[in-house]
């Protein structure tokens, strides 16, 4: 597989910044919080040119942090991210404009005091993709491509609805002519009828511009709809990776199975209330994750082996990977209802 976007063994830790006093206090045996959170833990992924990779998991699983690492918003503590062989970051400095992000909340991601046209033009002017003199036409073109009326470039964000703002945010990201687009929950804050419009726009534009995408969402049905492959994260680790239809149809990791099982589904031909499965317990604190496989305390298939050592990632087929000792047993359980 020719990788266009590669994430190689990337980890990201968030630790407390200790003052000198606290360091001394810790040395003397005082109780100072020195543990750090491993938000992303040794993640290796590769995405082909033009492919959309879905990234799913519950809050706190590290999916947004991984998105930030790929987008060059945060430097990895260790490991590298490269696009077409070139690194995204050198040290803690982003050195490419080839990756851009669309964020979740279009109310927070647009400057309320800048005209939306200026917001979209700012990056392309700074990086020489257009000149100040030509920026008006340049921005108008992008407005049209995302389905906005170009006469609106002189308006302010508060004059737009949520769906329109998300279109502006998409225009801002795409006006930088990126090769890779990170979408961090781009439809989570939108109403259902508007969600469909933005998803359709996303599908059209990624195809037309041959964009490589990482689509982060907690909404499994949205990810299923837009992605080619999907990666499932749990407490900073990728537990399963594979083509969407296969992973969703027949999960190899018990967590994937449980996550899909607990999503309320709209069943049109049921006369009784639909049954859905629940996962016992809650996600453990990432400050003190369990030993071995992070999922073993909640896992119905757990054995003593699972608490001793983290399961290595193994290939189930030439396109599917899973980090679980009992994936064969899980696969035998058959397709999800």
């Amino acid at each position, binding site marked *: 597989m020719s990788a266009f976007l590669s994430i190689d063994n990337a980890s990201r830790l968030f630790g407390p910044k200790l003052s000198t006093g606290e360091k001394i206090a810790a040395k003397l045996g005082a109780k100072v919080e020195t543990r750090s959170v491993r938000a992303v833990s040794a993640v290796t992924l590769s995405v082909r040119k033009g492919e959309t990779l879905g990234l799913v998991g519950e809050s706190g699983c590290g999916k947004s942090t991984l998105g930030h690492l790929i987008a060059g918003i945060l430097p990895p503590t260790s490991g590298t991210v490269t696009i077409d062989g070139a690194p995204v970051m050198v040290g803690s400095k982003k050195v490419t404009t080839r990756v851009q992000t669309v964020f979740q909340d279009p109310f927070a991601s647009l400057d309320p005091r800048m005209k939306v046209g200026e917001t979209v033009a700012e990056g392309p002017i700074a990086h020489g993709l257009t000149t100040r003199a030509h920026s008006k036409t340049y921005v108008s073109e992008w407005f049209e491509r995302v389905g906005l009326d170009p006469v609106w470039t002189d308006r302010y964000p508060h004059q737009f609805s949520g769906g329109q703002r998300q279109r502006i945010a998409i225009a801002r990201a795409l006006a930088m002519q990126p090769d890779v687009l990170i979408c961090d929950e781009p439809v989570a804050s939108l109403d259902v009828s508007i969600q469909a419009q933005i998803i*359709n726009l996303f599908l059209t534009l990624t195809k037309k511009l041959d964009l490589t995408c990482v689509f982060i969402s*907690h909404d499994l049905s949205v990810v299923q709809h837009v992605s080619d492959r999907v990666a499932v994260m749990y407490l900073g680790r990728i537990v399963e990776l594979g083509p969407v239809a296969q992973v969703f149809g027949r999960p190899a990791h018990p967590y994937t199975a449980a996550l899909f099982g607990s999503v309320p589904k*709209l069943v049109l031909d049921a006369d009784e209330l639909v049954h*859905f499965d629940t996962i016992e317990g*809650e*996600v453990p604190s990432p400050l003190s994750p369990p030993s071995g496989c992070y999922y073993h305390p909640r896992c119905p298939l757990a054995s003593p082996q699972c608490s001793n050592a983290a399961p290595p990632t193994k290939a189930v087929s030439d396109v599917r990977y899973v980090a679980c000792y009992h994936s064969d047993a899980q696969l035998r359980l058959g397709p999800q209802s």
Partner: protein
Amino acid sequence: MTDPVLSVQNLKTHFFTRAGVIKAVDDVSFDLARGEIMGLVGESGSGKTVTGFSLLGLVDPPGRIVEGSVKLNGTELTTLSGAALRSRRGREISMIFQDPIATLNPLLTIGQQMHMAISAHDRLGKAAANARCAELLTQVGIPSAKARLRAYPHEFSGGMRQRVAIAIALLHRPAVLVADEPTTALDVSIQAQILLQMRELAAETGTAMIWISHDLAVVSSLATKLAVMYAGKIVEQGPTATLLRDPRHPYTAGLIASLPAMAKPGTPLTQIRGTTPSLLSLPVGCPFAPRCDRQTETCLEKPPLTMEGARGWRCFHPVGHSAGALA
């Protein structure tokens, strides 16, 4: 049929702002039987939360209930005095909110807050009160409930905090519980646990629930009947299964069809064009008409409520049998 515990008739809640009158709830009617769960679905600004607030008399100026009746066990709530309403609120009808962090007082322990809720309506000894609190916490799925009474809200996870809020709302075994998107801020695995427990609680205790949500899938897995709101009006209501399988209002049909689960992966989704209208400048006649494929000149009139058995809709050109939803 037995008498409903809650009967809402022609409820109108309007907000009188400088920019004009906002008809947030405009002629809403429904009945709720003992132990029944009704899903109230709609997009932001459709008036579903204000409907919930109106039932408990929680609407603040510039808003007020201008017309209609809310009968709880036969008592008219809209004309009650503040004190009389307070004596029922929390005891006979209670509410849980979307954000469990904002609901609980960060400076008091869970036990203190639950005791306050008990003493608002009952005189109970400390031991008896503690026992009742622990019982409720256990019922909503909080482990080692007795010990947790001494904990502060920040010591609980989001899901656990919402369970505490639910336990407080159920302390007095209310006849009606209004739940305003209580699982929206939670993860799917926690949401599934809570939905299942609420289903059991309603069956066990006979508490009737109004579950407000924007998520059709969530309410369909919980509620036996649904009401779909658009621009302050219930545009369609009926038993969950029939309404979803065979929607009559083009808006309901559009909402169902626009869900990603209804389309083949990678294909364009069916979308409802345009955006929700501002409540300050609603279109004449049917509020959905400008976004609707079936609109004609008739739609410039306000569509009346058409009833057919247990279901009803407000549309001149209802979607036919099984058409539209599965297209």
